[in-house]
């Protein structure tokens, strides 16, 4: 009744047309999935605002009128990418850099050595034809149209994506850096990432999202899907860094599934965009698998963040831990919803969750919903959430030691996010630290 958005699906501008060229890409099985995803997207209503995960963000934000999508002028952003690539490759701390320019161009820098050791790092479209046995087995297994309307949108239109396969036993010591740049005003992109890490293999990935519209009145749109599989005894670290431009509307669904004895570290970091809705989930599918998540976001100006995390214990004897930090200033808002679900046959699990929100001034707004769904008794599970300003006593203490107030705030905020920063590869840590500092100074 009071929700005018519900009927807008009828607006044909948002539908994927039957002749969309993206639907024709890939081998036959892939085209079939794309078509089914298109049907799912077109027939699914726009999520109702009363629905659990949509209470804080208008779904219309992520619908794109295809007739209005501009397909030009990506140059400006991509110049910056070149510079970052050079820097990354020069300091030699990476296993390689993959650049994804709004899906139009995907470049591989310094990944040859890794590929020579048996890994596959390639375009997802190429992998679909060259490694169909892998891609068909894993693609769409975790993020698909059953997840929701916007996952169906990516499922139909992704073009192009990145595919990473690490064979059994291969240990990749240095992180692999993915740089994904979005287009300017009016652009829409659907990046997709599929990672399969073989048995007893090890991989660290930094997945960095940049670019996008600089103008909030003419936003750009990114709808991203990430699927990660950690096979038995694998060790995977995945850092997602979202530092997009102020006019970006970003939607992302990440799902990882880990098997027996595997460990997974997920580090969601978010700084950019006008509206950013990200959903990170790990499914613990094998005994003795372990997942931890250390997230942080820093919002300033009028930014809106809507983050979800999921730890789904499907198998018994599994352990999970989440520590999610939120810092807000100016008029920024954040909603955090974190679910731990432990299935009935997942016995002897441990799951912990913590969400802390630091509100630097009045006018900020934070919501936190840490949820538990526990379907058996043999668990140890707890969660905690706090919200509040910086403790005035801490400021007072630092002032009394001769530190000025701005510096005191900086020290306290840095301390607040340290547990998260410690999880990030060293070369990235300084950059994240500087993002935090920049935001504290109001840039």
């Amino acid at each position, binding site marked *: 009744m009071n929700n005018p958005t519900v009927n807008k699906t009828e607006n044909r501008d948002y539908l994927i047309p039957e002749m969309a060229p993206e639907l024709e890409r890939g081998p036959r099985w892939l085209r079939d999935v794309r078509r089914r995803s298109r049907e799912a997207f077109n027939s699914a209503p726009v999520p109702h605002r009363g629905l659990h995960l949509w209470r804080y963000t208008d779904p219309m934000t992520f619908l794109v009128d295809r007739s209005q999508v501009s397909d030009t002028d990506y140059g400006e952003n991509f110049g910056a990418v070149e510079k970052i690539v050079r820097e990354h490759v020069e300091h030699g701390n990476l296993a390689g850099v993959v650049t994804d320019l709004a899906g139009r161009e995907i470049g591989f820098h310094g990944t040859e050595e890794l590929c020579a050791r048996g890994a596959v790092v390639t375009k997802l479209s190429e992998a679909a034809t060259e490694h169909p046995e892998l891609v068909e087995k894993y693609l769409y297994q975790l993020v698909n149209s059953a997840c929701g309307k916007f996952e169906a949108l990516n499922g139909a239109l992704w073009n192009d994506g990145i595919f990473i396969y690490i064979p059994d036993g291969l240990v990749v010591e240095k992180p692999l850096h993915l740089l994904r740049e979005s287009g300017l005003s009016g652009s829409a992109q659907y990046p997709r990432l599929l990672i399969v890490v073989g048995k007893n293999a090890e991989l660290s990935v930094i997945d960095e999202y940049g670019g996008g519209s600089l103008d909030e009145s003419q936003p750009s749109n990114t709808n991203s899907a990430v699927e990660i599989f950690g096979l038995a005894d694998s060790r995977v670290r995945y850092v997602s860094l979202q530092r997009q431009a102020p006019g970006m509307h970003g939607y992302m669904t990440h799902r990882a599934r880990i098997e027996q004895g595997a460990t997974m570290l997920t580090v969601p970091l978010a700084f950019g965009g006008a509206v950013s809705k990200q959903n990170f989930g790990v499914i613990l599918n094998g005994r003795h698998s372990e997942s931890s998540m250390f997230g942080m976001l820093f919002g300033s100006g009028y930014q809106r963040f809507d983050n979800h995390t999921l730890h789904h214990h499907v198998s018994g004897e599994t352990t999970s831990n989440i520590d999610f930090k939120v810092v807000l200033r100016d008029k920024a808002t954040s909603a955090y919803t974190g679910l731990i679900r432990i299935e009935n046959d997942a016995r002897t699990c441990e799951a912990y969750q913590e969400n802390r929100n630091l509100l630097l001034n009045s006018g900020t707004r934070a919501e936190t919903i840490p949820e538990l769904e526990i379907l058996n*008794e043999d668990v140890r*599970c707890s969660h905690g959430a706090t919200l*509040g*300003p910086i403790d005035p006593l801490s400021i007072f203490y630092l002032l009394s030691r001769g530190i000025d107030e701005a510096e005191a705030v900086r020290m306290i905020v840095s301390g607040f996010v340290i547990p998260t920063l410690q999880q990030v590869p060293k070369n990235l840590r300084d950059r994240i630290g500087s993002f935090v500092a920049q935001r504290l100074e109001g840039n």
Partner: protein
Amino acid sequence: MSDKIKQQNAELASIGDDYATKYGFRDPIDYFHKGARGINHEVVEMISKMKKEPRWMSDIRHQALDIFYSKPMPQWGNTELLSEIDFENIFYFMKPIENQQQSWDDVPEYIKKTFDKLGIPEAERKFLGGVSAQYESEVVYHSMREDLKKQGIIFLDMDSALREYPEIVKKYFGTVIPSADNKFAALNTAAWSGGSFIYVPPGIDVKVPLQAYFRINAENMGQFERTLIIVDKGSRLHYIEGCTAPVYSTDSLHAAVVELVALEGAYIRYTTIQNWSRNIFNLVTKRASAFKNATIEWVDGNLGSRLTMKYPCIQLLGEGAKGEMLSVAFAGKDQHQDAGAKMIHAAPNTSSRITSKSISKDNGRASYRGLVKVHKNAANTKASVQCDALLIGENARSDTYPTMEIDHDQVKIEHEARVSKVAEEQLFYLTSRGLTEDDARLLIVNGFMEPFTKELPLEYAVELNRLIELEMEGSLG
């Protein structure tokens, strides 16, 4: 120690095997008035006419019925169970006797027996300042101590209050919970009958608790009591209510609305123990408004019913208001206790605390669904939420869905939840001291519930302990 527990267990066995014998009896009776099944504008008009209500009230009823029609069923929570409610199969109004009695002797024998079995007159003699007993739709017995009457305290059933104090009822009715609040509040507003009305004038400390007891006897009955409690400036009140119903094979619906108003500096303690039989859908809306420096303490127990959806709410509307909510849910076999608490901070310097304890046993499911909302003007708010869940049995389920919405930075909000089973170490310790495993488990569960039971009046605490012991019997595999 073990002997004591054994003795206690023996006592327990004599209480009765289960709910059916203790509360589950039913009275075969002829009703003074038993309406037709289903609800529509004619039924609403008939209820209003029989009660000889003023026009403004029947207008409110009709409006509310339209709201009920227009609102969809909740799309969240246990939608599977909710969909089983057949609104057309429910009796919306049953009047057991023609007139309410003030002397226990005048109450018809069968009803008297019912409340005797439930221990109401005994409790009244022992520790209560006033008692109201509702049977189906209407209050059948009502009494209050003379000295309280003299102080100007009004304690009546809602129907009488509407007749005798229409101006107070009109001023506050629906102000805390408007008809459009939710589908079931709308249904209650359309079909309400009975419930308690209390008004405490300024500056009076009501030292003895007032109590109401609600009983559903008939099958497919819908009980829609409406309670309105106003405690004026600087006064204090403790109100207690309890609920039971017989065991039938088909379901009855209980959709109450309870509105509490604590004016400046007032204090209300509201204690409610819901022990409906396991064929009752208990979908109630309960809310309190606390004005400047007022305090609301809420003690909420959910033991019975098939599905309970109940999220008592305290709105802190005046500076310095305080809210405290202590709730406990016990979800046994086939039960779903979807309970929780809401605290709305809408004024500066307000504070609140929620403590929720739940036990899920067998395939029972206990959910905590809560909200702490801090509005823009509510500087220096303090709120803490603590949820503890205990799971007994491998198919027990516990959910926690707390929501915190904070629009102000000068606040301190904390939330914590823990889910666990009875710890092996604790069991081991107790059994090593000579307790049987059954006894040890009982001791641990009682300890878990203690912060709650110690807040109850003695009689209720004993009753609750017995119920839990009953529920726990043979819980070992």
